[in-house]
């Protein structure tokens, strides 16, 4: 045999092309592998048609499980025992959300670099240094000591893994194919990671700012004045007339040397990450039974943050939403009770200055003794690169996130972490939070609710409750460290034992109210209670405006219906606009305005404070008041060297309403002395100019629905997998808290009674597959302010009108 050179050329060419088409290059997937119809992404193109009935043989079940899917493909799972129930829940969540489970766990555990490569190294280091793994391991250890919860977590894990074991590479969700990696088996600690991620989202100072020179620059009086411990305007969650029927434990005294701390720690609440909930007593509803509503606001993503399901087995029949990865139902209802949550936002994260003995950093000072530093090595695998090892120093407070020289530059999340400080954070605490949900899922009355809440640690939530027995209640609940007033508002001294958390507020003394006089309870992330509550929880909460609007509307309702509640969830009225619009307009110097500005001023003059999509005024007002706030404060407060934050919206409103001559109005970067009128007028003109430059002459383009430009992006920001721009109203200061990327991530209204009726939806769909018709099928109704009727299945009687598909899981021998 004699070969021609060209044969080898062709062979070489073919092999090269095979190699290139099978390799991930840059952000693109391996092309032929991805585009191959037999194993590539085309396999995720789901047919609109569904098989009405099917049976799967699954190893690990003890009995038979029926899963009924309704018109929105929401599963109603019926099992013969609890173990099978949580197994089936894990199985079906894995079927619908496998990639989300994988990605979010990797995010929390600092393992994204394994699949994304060097881009994620800083993020991975950050999450590890913050002690996410430390917290998750502590949680897992405690849960495993509780036989019942251990069973739940193990069954759930087994269910997820049973599903994974049925998969061939062609079945992997599309994101695995795009990023070119494989799903791995689930571990119980992953569920702990996901719950810790909620703490990272809701109870972490990931936007921690500090004004290191604020005190020396302005003096303590100014700081006290501009960053007060209780706001100018407030409408606390626990109604002010409530009395406290417990004997408080002694509160630690503030140490005298506390003023030594010259650094104020500010954790500005990320507005938009908040929530509403309210419940009304039967005395004020049309049915005579309570109504309950909840809408948690989060950064909205596809696949959706929440997953709806109904879980039925002996001893339990509950409907609601869960976070993929967490067994049970987090917000929902059963035939006797309904409950929901909003974020509390209490101060559960503090920084402690560490004094090392010497440069070896192996011992640190506490009181008069030297304690040993524990060194923990974090190993980060990086795709396409060598593995990285990071040593994190742990004190009894928690991890020292960065010592000198460790803080990365140009990584936004860590900008505001003080170097050389140990992090004390509630998310590190061992906790058995899933037990709270386990018991709420089975609760029959107020006593069950009270008992369930005692297990809960973090992130602290305002647990709202209503029962068929006509009780309503709300409890800002979680582990609240026992602090002196203002403890942790400033950075703390880790060598002074008096600066440590002195235990906790007894769980049964958390603020709570049952059946208040006014006939309703509510929360919208504002202060938990007024200043009569004996414990200090925080000095700063989300502004009171949403809460005040909710309370005003609820007070005016009589014979309230589900639709009244739905309208309130969609209410675009802004109390913030009501508070300041007039004072702003009054201070504009009309003589200095040009024709366009005059026209804009005339429009906003007639505005009735609603952030409706079709209104132009909210676009003007929103840009204007933000510009004004930065105009007032930033000349004094911004500091190139130190990340900074300006006083709150509440303090700015107070200034505008009560002070005409404050020095803060003057722009210190100009030689002139500007007045209140000057700054209000200038910022108005700038606002109109910006809007004109962006949207042209005043026209429909200026409408709030366009200017706000709400959209729901994919979790990994893959283009094409998010929604288009949604034309919606809403504002962070209105009950309907839809901003550009955050908003009501789940809306629910429950009407209790002989037969429970419920409505709800989220901006997404049950499936996590962009190739499914159930990926974003609820978005349209969500954007239109509508709700879907929720099907509450009763044992043994699936309603043929609602059930479109049945899957039976049978134990494989």
């Amino acid at each position, binding site marked *: *045999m*004699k*070969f*021609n050179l*060209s*044969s080898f050329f*062709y*062979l070489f*060419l*073919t092999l090269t*092309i*095979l190699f290139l*088409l*099978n390799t991930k290059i840059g952000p*693109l997937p391996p*092309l*032929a*592998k991805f*585009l*191959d*119809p*037999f*194993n*590539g*992404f*085309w*396999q*995720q*193109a*789901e*047919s*609109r*048609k569904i098989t009405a009935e099917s049976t799967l043989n699954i190893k690990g079940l003890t009995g038979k499980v029926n899963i009924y899917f309704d018109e929105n493909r929401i599963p109603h799972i019926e099992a013969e025992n609890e173990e099978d129930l949580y197994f089936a829940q894990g199985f079906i969540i894995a079927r619908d959300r496998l990639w989300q489970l994988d990605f979010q766990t990797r995010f929390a555990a600092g393992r994204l670099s394994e699949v994304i490569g060097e881009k994620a190294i800083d993020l991975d280091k950050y999450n590890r240094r913050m002690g996410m793994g430390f917290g998750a391991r502590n949680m897992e250890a405690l849960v495993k000591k509780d036989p019942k919860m251990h069973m739940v977590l193990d069954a759930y894990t087994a269910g997820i893994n049973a599903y994974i074991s049925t998969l061939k*590479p062609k079945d992997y969700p*599309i994101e695995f194919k*795009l990023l070119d990696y494989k799903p791995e088996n689930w571990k119980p600690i992953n569920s702990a990671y996901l719950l810790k991620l909620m703490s990272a989202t809701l109870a972490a100072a990931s936007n921690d700012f500090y004004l290191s020179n604020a005190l020396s620059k302005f003096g303590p009086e100014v700081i006290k004045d501009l960053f007060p411990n209780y706001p100018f305007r407030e409408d606390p969650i626990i109604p002010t007339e409530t009395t406290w029927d417990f004997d408080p434990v002694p509160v630690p005294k503030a140490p005298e040397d506390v003023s030594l701390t010259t650094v104020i720690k500010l954790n500005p609440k990320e507005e938009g990450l908040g929530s509403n909930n309210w419940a009304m007593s039967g005395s004020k509803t049309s049915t005579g039974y309570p109504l309950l509503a909840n809408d948690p606001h989060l950064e909205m993503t596809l696949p959706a943050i929440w997953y709806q399901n109904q879980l039925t087995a002996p001893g339990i029949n509950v409907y609601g939403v869960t976070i993929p990865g967490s067994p049970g139902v987090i917000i929902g209802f059963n035939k006797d009770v309904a409950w929901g949550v909003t974020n509390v936002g209490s101060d559960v994260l503090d920084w402690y200055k560490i004094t090392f003995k010497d440069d070896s950093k192996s011992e640190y000072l506490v009181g008069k003794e030297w304690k040993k530093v524990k060194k923990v090595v974090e190993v980060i695998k990086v795709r396409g690169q060598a593995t990285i090892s990071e040593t994190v120093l742990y004190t009894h407070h928690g991890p020292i996130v960065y010592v000198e020289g460790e803080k990365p530059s140009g990584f936004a999340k860590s900008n505001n972490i003080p170097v050389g400080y140990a992090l004390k954070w509630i998310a590190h605490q061992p906790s058995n939070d899933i037990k709270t949900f386990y018991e709420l899922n089975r609760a029959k009355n107020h006593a069950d609710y009270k008992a369930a809440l005692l297990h809960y640690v973090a992130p602290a939530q305002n647990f709202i409750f209503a029962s068929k027995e006509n009780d309503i209640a709300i409890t800002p609940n979680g582990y609240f460290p026992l602090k002196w007033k203002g403890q942790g508002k400033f950075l703390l001294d880790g060598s002074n034992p008096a600066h440590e958390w002195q235990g906790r507020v007894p769980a049964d003394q958390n603020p709570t109210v049952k059946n208040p006089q006014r006939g309703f309870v509510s929360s919208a992330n504002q202060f938990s209670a007024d200043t009569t509550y004996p414990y200090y929880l925080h000095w700063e909460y989300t502004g009171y405006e949403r809460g005040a609007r909710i309370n005003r509307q609820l007070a005016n309702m009589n014979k309230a219906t589900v639709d009244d509640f739905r309208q309130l969830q969609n209410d675009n009225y802004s109390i913030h606009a009501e508070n300041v619009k007039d004072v702003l307009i009054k201070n504009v110097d009309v003589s200095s305005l040009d024709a366009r500005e005059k026209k804009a001023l005339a429009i906003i003059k007639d505005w009735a404070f609603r952030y409706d999509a079709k209104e132009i005024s909210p676009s003007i007002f929103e840009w204007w008041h933000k510009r004004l706030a930065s105009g007032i404060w930033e000349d004094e407060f911004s500091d190139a060297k130190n990340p900074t934050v300006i006083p709150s919206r509440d303090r700015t409103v107070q200034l505008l309403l009560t002070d005409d001559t404050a020095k803060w109005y003057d722009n210190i970067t100009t030689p002139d002395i500007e007045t209140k009128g000057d700054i209000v007028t200038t910022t108005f003109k700038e606002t109109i100019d910006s809007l004109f430059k962006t949207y042209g002459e005043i026209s429909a383009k200026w409408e709030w629905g366009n200017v706000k430009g709400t959209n729901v992006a994919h979790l990994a920001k*893959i*283009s*094409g*997998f998010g929604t*288009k721009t949604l034309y919606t109203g809403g504002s962070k200061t209105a009950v309907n808290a839809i901003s550009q990327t955050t908003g009501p991530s789940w809306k629910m209204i429950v009407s209790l009674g002989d037969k429970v009726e419920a409505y709800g939806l989220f901006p997404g769909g049950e499936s996590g597959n*962009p*190739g499914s*018709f159930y990926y974003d099928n609820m978005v349209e109704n969500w954007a239109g302010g509508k709700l879907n009727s929720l099907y509450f299945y009763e044992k043994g009687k699936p309603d043929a009108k609602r059930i479109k598909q049945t899957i039976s899981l049978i134990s494989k021998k």
Partner: protein
Amino acid sequence: MLILIIIVSCFIAQSFLPWWIIAPICLTASFFFSSSKKQAFWSGFAGVFILWLVKILSLSLPNEHLLANKVGQVFMLPAADTNWIIMIFASSLIGGVVGGLSCLTGNSFRKNSKK
């Protein structure tokens, strides 16, 4: 003849093996059953192209091209309801090119071995 062999054997093999199995199949089939270079290339190209096209249509039509339109945006296409046409064509084309090249390679060995 060669086209049919390629379609049938690639269909069977691809049902349980990775995509690159089409290369050795085309190469071998062409080694035994091709005549000219041109015939080999076009048979390989058309065989895999048609197989992939039909398979894709069988998946994407019942999906109303929902996913293909979205994936188009991953590949920098603008948001459009017609992205699926490009996606289907591009996918089939890649399969076709690999099939054609593999057949060409198989054919080149055939001529040599005859000598």
